[in-house]
């Protein structure tokens, strides 16, 4: 009996659970930080904009911006934000989809990776540099060549009326399009690559040409993911600050012409925050931030749901 129990004394104790519990708790706390931060951002903006919320209520969304008389409203900025972002998306989306198609379906293999690297480099350019290039290179060129041409051809439309300043909503749309292209291209490429090769092979086997294969086997099932990619690009465009501030002209007036200077929610904050010393003015700028946050959250949630459907099974595999 003694002989039987003696060796047990040397058996190692099972590892202590304390370390595991502490570690799990620590990492859990850090993961929960994302919720804390979302709440914190919302709360701080709400606190900051209280004064303005109380004074203007819902009419803040449909009023003009007149700091001289102490009247504040976000309408010109909401207009500028949506017009520049949606126009930017209209420019960026076809370009991105064509590029992603080229890179996944058409290009020779040795071109694909280097080309994608270049597009990632475009995404890595800081927005202040894009803005610098925008004001001194892009905008002067746009003002000299494409804008007069546009006005000559489509001048009868009210959106192309008026003096061509160069720094205008249309220029902001072009800059924002340049920033959106790498994002949408990269996501669209993922969406196309998620289409199984067997589908393409089946289409080829039926005698389809390359374009027919792309159209029938690749595009058909990708619509949802592509919509998500567009939403994510749009989310980026809505909140873009520096490059837009530098090329949009920063006028707080509302104008129907795309050639007129304007402002976005983000550019108005960047431009006016340091001069806004009195309470209501600063509070109104915080409310612009709140509006901007809500708009981007909505676009991002939509994008997340749409794209989650594409990458869902891959994520589920390791959880």
């Amino acid at each position, binding site marked *: 009996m003694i002989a039987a129990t003696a060796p047990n004394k040397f058996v190692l104790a099972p*590892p*202590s659970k304390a*370390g*595991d519990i502490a*570690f*799990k708790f620590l*990492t859990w*706390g*850090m*993961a929960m930080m*994302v*919720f804390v*931060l*979302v709440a914190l951002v919302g709360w*701080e*903006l709400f606190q*900051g904009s209280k004064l303005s919320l109380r004074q203007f209520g819902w009419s803040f969304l449909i009023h003009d911006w007149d700091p001289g008389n102490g009247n504040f409203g976000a309408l010109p900025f909401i207009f500028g934000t949506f017009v520049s972002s949606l126009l930017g998306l209209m420019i960026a989306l*076809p*370009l991105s989809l064509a*590029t992603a198609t*080229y*890179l996944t379906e*058409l*290009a020779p293999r040795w071109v694909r990776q280097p080309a994608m690297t270049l*597009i990632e*480099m*475009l995404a*890595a*350019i*800081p*927005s*202040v540099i*894009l*803005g*610098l*290039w925008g*004001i*001194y290179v892009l905008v002067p060129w746009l003002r000299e060549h494409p804008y007069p041409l546009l006005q000559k051809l489509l001048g009868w439309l009210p959106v192309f009326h008026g003096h061509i300043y160069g720094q205008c909503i249309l220029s902001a749309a072009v800059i924002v399009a340049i920033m959106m292209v790498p994002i949408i*291209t990269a996501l669209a490429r993922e969406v196309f690559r998620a289409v199984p090769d067997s589908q393409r092979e089946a289409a080829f086997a039926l005698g389809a*040409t*390359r*374009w*027919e294969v792309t159209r029938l086997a690749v595009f058909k099932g990708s619509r949802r993911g592509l919509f998500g990619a567009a939403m994510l690009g749009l*989310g980026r465009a*809505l*909140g873009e600050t*520096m490059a837009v501030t*530098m090329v949009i002209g920063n006028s707080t007036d509302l104008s129907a012409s795309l050639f007129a200077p304007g402002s976005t929610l*983000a550019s108005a*904050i*960047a431009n006016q*925050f340091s001069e806004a010393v009195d309470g209501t003015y600063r509070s109104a*700028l915080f409310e612009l*931030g709140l509006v901007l*946050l809500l708009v*981007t959250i909505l676009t*991002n*949630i939509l994008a*997340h749901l749409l794209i989650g459907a594409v990458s869902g099974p891959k994520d589920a595999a390791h*959880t």
Partner: protein
Amino acid sequence: MKPLQNQWRKASSAAVSTFCFLCALMVILPLALILFHLFRLGASSVDWNFLTHLPRPVGETGGGMANAIVGSFVLVALAVCVGVPVGLLGGIYLSEFGSPRLNWAVRLAADILNGTPSIVWGIVVYALVVVPMKGSSAYAGGLALGLIMIPLVMRTTEAMLALVPNSYREAALALGIPKWKSVLHIVLRTAGKGIVTGVLLACARVAGETAPLLFTASGNQFWSHNLSEPIASLPRQIYTYAIAPYDDWKRQAWAGALVLILITLALNAGVRVLTRGSGTPAGE
């Protein structure tokens, strides 16, 4: 099928291919143009003086951005102190402990944070830190950049840890190693390169941010000797100089932009060297 119809199908396929190729060229074109103009307008002004001198007052030519370059590094270092611990540990939770349902919610929240405009971070940190501290500081700027880093680091960490084969974890557990040790010493080490990649990319991203710094770190024409003072940063200095009406400042804005893009591209290139041959995909 009729031969004419087949010809039409082939022709349209070729036309679409050409169109897509041209679009791809159009997409690359801005990158080429930006780099071209940065070198043409900036290269001649980037010299030893520019890299080692303080900005001169308006009207005097010359001077440099030494304080802004150092300031940017300081701010990114502070951001790493905030962003990496939270992002890394949060990513570990998602990959090693989380349940599918909770992970879905955390990912959604991280995506929301990632999509939060950088100017919003600027005014939130302003209200959170600058107002109570009664002045802008390097701490505030570093915090703003660090908060931006959190979702970036969290998502790449999670993605990289997911690539570690489960057999590694099982082998460690079979040896009786506690889970936290196996995560730190085996899982994390295996994914190390990928995580460092993610952190470097996040650094490159925040190093170029201007909007969150406008009202938090503010700017400084001199050296900052204390982290509770306003501090200069390269993007902020480029912005100030770019919109100023002085020719000498514009020249320096281009030079600063060239330095900034070289730093950003060097970080990106470093990532490629790091991931080459290891088979680890480089972040998202």
